[in-house]
């Protein structure tokens, strides 16, 4: 099943042409890794999928982008963002307690029942492999956690609103290798129930967790294929150059 379909997608930020004629499909229950050097448009592509680009002044788009066969601009933006969650590059806890961070989205969608909220919080923290580390101090500020814990808290917060798709925007760029391994482990387990789009600067990470890998360069989608194929026999020489570390 196809989750997202982009056809001839072009976007601009003011004068900057950030995505050029992108055609791509995101399948349900896959991890699609998106790699490419900085300014290649990979994060811009990711932020299209939950319409976060709309916040940038001077944003324009044309072409088609469908989510579950429905034009993305026709879906109520709050419902879209509930269904398409996002984990950001830096751990960004809200200035609230651990519990309130995870409960935030649920509360904003109208859940008032305390028992129901604590069930959701527990389930989400377990899914993000954080429960055992924080279960005794749920009312402590989220900023008291380490960077890796904060990032898993952000994953739990995204899971709490029960999205269908999770967008990861370089989620391990600020983390040490052990924390990175934990986040990757969480991603692989989540694949069963969620569709995952992972933007990463770490080519090895794409190779480790991605089912398919897309390579972006200067706003264009250069190549999209099975991850094994991309990393063993890429059809484009630019892809080959990038994954071998010749540029980027």
């Amino acid at each position, binding site marked *: 099943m196809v989750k997202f379909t982009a056809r001839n997608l072009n976007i601009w930020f003011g004068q900057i042409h950030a995505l050029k004629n992108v055609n791509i499909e995101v399948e349900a229950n896959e991890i699609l890794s998106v790699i490419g050097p900085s300014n290649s448009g990979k994060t811009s592509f990711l932020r299209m999928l939950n319409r976060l680009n709309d916040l940038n002044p001077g944003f324009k788009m044309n072409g088609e982008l469908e989510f579950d066969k429905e034009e993305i601009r026709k879906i109520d933006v709050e419902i879209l963002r509930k269904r398409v969650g996002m984990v950001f590059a*830096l751990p*960004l806890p809200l200035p609230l307690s651990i519990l309130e961070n995870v409960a*935030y989205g649920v509360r*904003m969608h109208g859940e008032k029942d305390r028992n129901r909220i604590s069930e959701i919080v527990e389930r989400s923290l377990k899914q993000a492999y954080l429960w055992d580390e924080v279960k005794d101090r749920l009312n402590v500020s989220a900023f008291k956690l380490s960077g890796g814990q904060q990032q898993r808290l952000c994953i739990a917060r995204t899971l709490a609103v029960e999205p269908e798709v999770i967008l990861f925007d370089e989620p391990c760029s600020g983390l040490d290798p052990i924390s990175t391994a934990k986040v990757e482990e969480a991603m692989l387990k989540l694949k069963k129930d969620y569709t995952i789009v992972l933007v990463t600067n770490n080519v090895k990470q794409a190779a480790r967790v991605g089912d398919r890998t897309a390579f972006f360069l200067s706003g264009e989608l250069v190549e999209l294929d099975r991850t094994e194929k991309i990393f063993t026999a890429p059809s484009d020489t630019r892809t080959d150059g990038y994954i071998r570390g010749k540029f980027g």
Partner: protein
Amino acid sequence: MRNTKGVQKIAFFFLFLATLLIVVPVGLIVVIIIQKGLPAINWQFLSDIPRQGMRAGGIFPAIIGTFYLVLGAIIFALPIGLLAAIYLSEYAKDNVLNRIIKLAIVNLSGVPSVVYGLFGLALFVVFLKFGASILSGSLTLGIMILPIIITTSREALESVPQSFREVSLSLGASKWQTIRHIVLPNAIPGILTGTILGLGRAAGETAPILFTVAAFYLPQLPKSIFDQAMALPYHLYVISTQVPNVDEKIRYGTALVLLSLVLFMNLVAIIIRYNFRKKKKW
């Protein structure tokens, strides 16, 4: 090269001197006013009405009048200023209308206070027929401090990191929910700072209340917002220039009370702000 150290020392000396010069007038004002005013302060001075043509007795009606005026100005200006600040920082797009609004706010803060007084006289006292009253005075002071509250509140709202907004929106919260639950709670310390500045300005200004509320001599407390009232800055002006043979210590005592009142209000706001900062989690 050999002179670098020497030049640095000279530069450092002048920078330090300039900074020190700021402290001197502040210190002198406080010392002189306390020194000359403190002998006048006693319970009667604070709680009694003025007697013998303001040459004796107390200043209680003026304290109460100033308190009401400041309170009224804040009740009027804080909600309007805050709502306008939220609109300008969160919703306003960069277009001609909003640029005119922003320009108007900048200009409003540059209007001399006596002009506010005349404006208040024309609009509230005469046209709206509120008469010279606490209501007219509060509204005039409120308009005067509106730009201060809007500007500082806007800065406070805009200083809340954009990433918090993105996180909240990415979880499917609406824009208003984001403002209400994330932006506003984290902007409160800054908004209080603006309110402090506004309070101090409203309490100390003479010109805006001159035509709109201030009574020359009114030895009783106001009974409603449609009454005239005495106010500390105007009372100080009156006993310093209009009434002959007022004892110096009464004048400085009045100044001390006014200064203390402003400092006390600031202190309360600083304590509230401190408590919010302590709870701030980033």
